[in-house]
């Protein structure tokens, strides 16, 4: 089986790798905040936003879809904290409920769009599993930008994130607005997921946020190395996975990446045993 390093290969592998960087960063933050499931919720929440973005703009322009995704991604997170404050529901029930609600809404809208038969609509369903093999240079730019934004935000607000995530009471007394940091962390999650969905689809992208920090945890001792290593591992998983799916016909790239990550996390899971 010829291993061809064509432009298409470069775009596919490069795009996935770039997405992996951002996913690792967002995942490491969520890991420490004990919010790893929020990646899953956001990923499912993005779908209705993307559909609405399409319905309102009538085209499949990346901008309107991204905007829609961002709006519904945020909405889901705030719905969760709103209900959390005003309800006796436990966190896991809450997240499962939010996930089901948004996913259901997303499928409803997607089916609605499918039924209108507007030919521009086709391609929305590619968001479900991603289209890693069909990535082009524009996709690369989007995914590179989202990862770059997450890198910049983490560097800029490094100490804030570190102090807040460890002890938000302490930073509260220092006058740091909890709301600000929550918005920051949620933004990074939403942005990174929107970038990563192009490659992996929204069903698989949460895995890419969860796995790299799990792999990294036993090997790091500081917050800084945790974030960096998670980003590197995220990129590495995507790189290896997409290259592996190269060597065989009809092996879909997204799932290969996730399975690769899952297998590579076994040693860490063992190390993290009590």
């Amino acid at each position, binding site marked *: 089986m010829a291993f061809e390093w064509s432009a298409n290969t470069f775009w596919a592998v490069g795009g996935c790798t770039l997405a992996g960087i951002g996913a690792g960063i967002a995942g490491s933050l969520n890991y420490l905040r004990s919010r790893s499931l929020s990646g899953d919720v956001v990923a499912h929440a993005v779908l209705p936003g993307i559909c609405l973005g399409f319905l309102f703009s009538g085209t499949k322009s990346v901008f309107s879809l991204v905007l829609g995704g961002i709006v519904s991604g945020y909405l889901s997170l705030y719905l969760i904290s709103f209900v959390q404050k005003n309800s006796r529901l436990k966190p896991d029930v809450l997240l499962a409920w939010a996930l089901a609600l948004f996913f259901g809404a997303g499928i409803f809208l997607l089916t609605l769009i499918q039924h209108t038969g507007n030919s521009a609509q086709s391609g929305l369903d590619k968001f479900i599993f991603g289209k890693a093999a069909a990535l082009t240079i524009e996709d690369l730019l989007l995914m590179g930008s989202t990862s770059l934004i997450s890198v910049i935000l983490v560097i800029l607000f490094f100490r804030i994130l570190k102090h807040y995530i460890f002890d938000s*009471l*302490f930073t509260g007394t220092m006058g740091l607005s909890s709301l600000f940091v929550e918005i920051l962390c949620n933004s990074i999650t939403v942005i990174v997921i929107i970038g990563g969905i192009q490659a992996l689809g929204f069903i698989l992208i949460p895995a890419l946020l969860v796995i790299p920090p799990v792999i990294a*945890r036993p090997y*790091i*001792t500081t917050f800084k190395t*945790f974030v960096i290593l998670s980003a590197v591992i995220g990129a590495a998983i995507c790189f290896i996975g997409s290259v592996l799916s190269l060597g065989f016909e009809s092996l879909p790239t997204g799932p290969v990446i996730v399975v690769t990550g899952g297998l590579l996390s076994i040693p860490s899971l063992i190390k993290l045993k009590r």
Partner: protein
Amino acid sequence: MKESAIDINNLSVTLSGNLILDNISVSVEKGMLTGLIGPNGAGKSTMLKAMLGLIPVNQGTITFFGKPLNEIRKQIAFVPQRQEIDWDFPATVEEIVLMGRFPFTGFFKRYSSEDKNEVEQALASAGITNLKNRQIGKLSGGQQQRVFIARALAQQASLIILDEPFAGIDAATEETIREVFIQLKNNGKTVLIVHHDLQTAAEYFDRLILLNVKIIEEGKKEDVLKEENLISAYGRKVKLY
């Protein structure tokens, strides 16, 4: 005229529909070791968090050394309960204590050698110099408490507020922490502590505040620990050894 470190007037707080603090008015005297005591659920932690603007209040004004919170944050060090923290966080003891230098560095300035020196001193005062590079996840309860004490010391604040620092720690740590507080008092600092154990309250503190949703009594130990006050607060007779 006694100078107050903290003045609370008409503070009321409701959480989840329950009135936790009912029109509290109390002062904490400057330069004293004050213990905030009362039964479980009395609102002690809530009072701390309300004072520090960490939770919303129904009504009330709070000043520190005569100033509102926002003007004087840097002079206040807060040590939360140990279990409110996820100690699995990847960091060394030194990094956590360095956080205490926030009033001097803010969120963006590099840590100077002065910062590092202050941290060394704080670690020494708390008796954990040897733990400087230890991962916080590998600390015992007493060691964790000392880390938090060191962080508060590194802040060089005038007012230190602690939430149950004596809970679940070993005897050696208890000794060390008491010495730290006495040292702080000798240096003119004010210390306010939420304390869980009535039996040791008289021994540890100069002043006491007995709280159960309302202020039952505050001031000198002998006044506060009178039998009728304890019955008011705890709902029954409490034996003091």
